[in-house]
């Protein structure tokens, strides 16, 4: 492109030469030649003359910007390769990364640990869904239509009205239905349900919209709240490898009656108070209760014959407490500085 103004034309030639030579193509946009033109523009008397000069300077700038943009595009031409070959022509076989660099995600490792304990206790695992319907998320769990208890679960919804489950309880009805045959054959339903759940919340160091939960369900004849308490105690003591003290707090869930929250003496400070337990010596760890008869009924199980308990708790928090992780957002960050510490 030719410029009428000799000063601009000279600058254009110089800048294009620079563009050819330099590796940092963007540097032409910062070049003193261009800045000088803008400085000069301010000294041109206002009116037609300035307008004309300004227009040409802008044209030059746009031309340069376009050149920079195009240079940034990778060469559109990708040469085809023989995808059936083990390695490229005239190239060595690529090697694997060194084993020492590899790592498992701490949430997944911890989930394995936890599932391992429950498997030893006789529980089978079933993974939770990541997209579900209102029936499984709420209705089958004894949430009446439009009930305010639904407000506690800030759920993500799709245009179709599908739900990103806010708790792993979304699998309860399926697990109970599937286990009905076992019950009739004299076998208890003993299941744990790990999975990813979602809450439509703003992110901060303590709140994630995406996290992992583990749900548990146990149903048989003659199951009572004492069994619930003993089972969760047994798990938590196995998990922390020490004996702990427990407190129970009444709670409300539509799908259990009665509902409780289990609080344990802080396993990191023996209940003396530390940063993990916010210096109170106790940690609220999971919600639980006796399965509501309506939930059993909804799965075709007679609540007068069978009773059961269920519980649920977050995995992220357990892992954060274990390693003293300061920010829950690290888990889904994909940051290798974080992840490689768990190799």
């Amino acid at each position, binding site marked *: 492109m030719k410029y009428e103004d000799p000063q601009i034309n000279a600058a254009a030639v110089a800048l294009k030469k620079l563009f050819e030579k330099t590796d940092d193509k963007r540097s032409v946009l910062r070049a003193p030649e261009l800045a000088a033109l803008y400085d000069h523009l301010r000294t041109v008397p206002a009116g037609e003359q300035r307008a004309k000069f300004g227009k040409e300077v802008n044209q030059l700038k746009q031309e340069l910007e376009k050149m920079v943009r195009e240079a*940034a*595009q990778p060469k559109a031409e*990708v040469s085809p*390769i023989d*995808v*059936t*070959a*083990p*390695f490229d*022509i*005239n*190239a*060595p076989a690529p*090697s694997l*990364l060194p084993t020492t*660099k*590899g790592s*498992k*995600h701490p949430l997944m490792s911890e989930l*394995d640990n936890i599932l391992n304990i429950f498997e030893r206790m006789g529980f*089978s*695992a079933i993974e939770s869904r990541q*997209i579900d319907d209102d029936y499984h998320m709420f209705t089958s769990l004894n949430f009446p239509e*439009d*009930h*305010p208890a639904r*407000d*506690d679960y800030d759920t*993500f919804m*799709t*245009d*179709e009205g*599908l739900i*990103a489950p806010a708790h792993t309880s979304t699998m309860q009805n399926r697990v109970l239905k599937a286990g009905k045959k076992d019950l009739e054959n004299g076998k*208890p339903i003993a299941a744990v349900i*790990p999975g990813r759940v979602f809450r439509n919340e*703003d992110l901060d160091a303590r709140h994630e919209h*995406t996290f992992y939960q583990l749900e548990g369900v146990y149903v*048989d004849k003659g199951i*009572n*709240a*004492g*069994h619930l*308490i003993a*089972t969760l105690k047994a798990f938590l003591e196995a998990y922390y490898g020490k004996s702990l003290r427990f*407190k*129970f*707090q*009444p709670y*409300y869930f539509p799908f259990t009656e009665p*509902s409780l*929250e289990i609080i344990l003496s802080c396993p990191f400070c023996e209940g003396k108070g530390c940063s993990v337990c916010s210096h109170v010596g106790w940690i*609220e760890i999971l919600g639980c209760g*006796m399965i509501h008869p309506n939930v059993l009924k909804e799965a075709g199980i007679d*609540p007068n014959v069978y009773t059961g308990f269920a519980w649920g708790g977050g995995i992220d928090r357990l892992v954060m407490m274990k390693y003293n992780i300061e920010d829950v957002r690290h888990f889904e960050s*994909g*940051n*290798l500085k974080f*992840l490689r510490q768990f*190799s």
Partner: protein
Amino acid sequence: MKMSLNWVKKFTDVHLPVNELIEKIGAQLGAVDEVIDIGKKYEGIVAAKVVECVKHPNADKLSICLIDDGGVVKDVKRNEKGLVEVVCGAPNVKAGQMVAWLPPGVTVPSTFDKDPFVLEARELRGVVSNGMIASARELALGDDHEGILVLGDNLKPGESFTKAYELDDVAIDIENKMFTHRPDLFGMLGIAREIAGIQHKLFKSPDWYREDADLNNDGRKNVLKLSVSNEVPGLVPRFCAIAIKDVKIEDSPVWLRTYLARIGVRPINNIVDLTNYFMLETAQPLHAYDYDKIKTGVLGVREAREGEQVTVIGGKTIKLKKGTIVITDGQKPIGLGGVMGGADTEVDKQTKNIVLEVATFDMNTTRRTAMEHGLFTDAATRFTKNQSPRQNRAVLVKAVAATKKIAGGRVASEIVDDKHFKTTPVTVKTTAEFINARLGLDLPAREMKQLLENVEFKVELDRDTLRVTVPFWRMDIEIAEDIVEEIGRLYGYDHLPPALPQRSIAPAEVNEELAFKARVRAELSAAGANEVLTYSFVHESLLSKTGQDIKNAYHIRNALSPDLQYYRVSLTPSLLDKVHPNIKNGFDSFGVYEMNKAHIKGILDDEKLPKEFNRLSLVLARKKPAPGAPFYRAKRYIEYLLSHNLGIAHSYIPVDESDGLPKEWQIAAAAYEPKRTAVIVASDKTILGIVGEPTPSAKNNLKLPAYTSQFELDMDAMKLKARPHPMYLPLNKYPETTQDICLRFPADISYAQAESFLFKALENASKPHGYQYWLKPIDIFQKPEDKAHKQITWHIILTHPERTLTTEEVNKLFDIIASDAKKELKAERI
């Protein structure tokens, strides 16, 4: 729900020390969020009489007061008569008043929570002021700071202000979530009942709290016309109202203000304060209207109509939606039912006549209205818990009596009582056995009866059977399991005997999917890759940057963050997105992988729900390029995983040559450069996944290094094909012979063709002699000057299970292969 311990004590004795009480509340009522020591906030404040009040010589607006505190405050300078000098800036201070004096050393209550201000003896324009005389605002008892708070004459100089107003109190904040189903626990009365119950003490509601409460016949005249017209009896089961004439609107008495303020409710005027007081006490919201502002003498209740609006207290104008319950003056809306009163009929300083309303609004409608307009008022909080319509009359009668006492006025109408609900109490029949079986207890029926009667259930006992009549304020008890909860909680969960369930020792079923994931995780991590987790939802821009069409993705309609607009349709883009930040962080060469789910709009499973594709994706990136196309690095990992570890036979088809690729793989392949991508196919044609390089535009958009490659695999297909364990071949006693063979092929012969030829040739040549063979490619070479050919070199290992091979027979075998190669593929042995 914030409770005041002193308020609760009006209804039941509490002798437990506060810390024990809090423990007990936590264990048997609900989680305690916070305990606030009200006594500490008001510590050291003393009632004092202003004996003398003169103008400050050096300041127009200040007065110098001499106050009499009965000499109780220590360490303060007194004059010869024992009076204390305090400078006061309030225009209303006068000799003879009883005031709240904050002596030096005392903290100003309004500053207690944030930045405590401790008073001292301080000179104000040449006169020493010993502390201060407090205004209502400084005492955190309201907004009024025009003047000092004047106390009643019933106080004596020197009397503790804190004690006189029962401010030696503790506020306990219990998590609302615990009470989602307990309307009664949003009032002090209900909490008091429960606190008695968990201490195993008998509770009795005050006499006035009964369903059939009525006004005394006090010679009232129906001088103000009042009627209620309820068009939505299903949503408003009860609406009680009464008119009161000639009230005097003023500040509430100090005691009333202190009771509201201690649990965080702002005092406004006597009428509004009384409605709040009884709401806090009984959980039943009340509302007061200025009778004369209603004009019609009619309160209508109906659903809002399209286009209507109402201005609520505080001045916010709300566009009403259909389905919202409104209160009208018979014509136009004047309030949001159950949520907030209207500004047009608000009680103010000029109000003479009022209407008191005690109504019940449907929980779900109230909830929707509150959420729609973001009006989470105290009334809405209570109505959304399903308040009982059977308490309205008791609350109204009590509030009328208090109004007359505090604001004067006389009853000017009948109680208008519009009601549409069942009055028969709920009864539940159950047995001690049923309850014990669910709690693991062995409680006798009569002990259960006592626990329930303590909180005013009526219980008839017939041997083991309990016939329980539910008190009118409990809306949550319907079935026997609700009684189980009641007994368990009142008895104390801490006392339930723990026992592990008994079951057979049959092994629990293993979850194959999770076990397979664990296996893949172990293999990939051992190969130096890093497992990541990334969000299931992605920003629209990530989809478009990687060439994915948003029409295939489920759209999230209510995400708070734009980063979470769509369910992802494949995992690879999420992982590509993690490359640049890590490169920037100084990682030069790495591989990140994830096992997670993808969802594609329109592809459903057996439940008619979106099919959950279980996928594994790995992305390998290297800041500086290595020789050869990056594709082969990803392929190296496929071989490691599928061939080496899982033993899955598979082949590679260039994606642009593969016909009939299923939709889900076409979608995933959109992020892959077609010229450098292969579909991985099992021997039975099952598609295992795709491997390739990102498209140039994805590379550009995500700032990926040139040397980036990736794969995405179907975990379910892999699991089905994976061998359960490694294959074993008996060890050979005889030495193996290794020899390289290099063949020059025409350039258009693919490696796969060359290799399959070699396999076939080896097989044909070996079979008659019983040789065993392995081959491994070691080099693919092309001379720069001869692009028409390429040379492939393999390492071939030969053995025989029964003897040592001779050089001659090996050479012979290689010669046969070479001549076959020439015949079939025009390949020369080099």
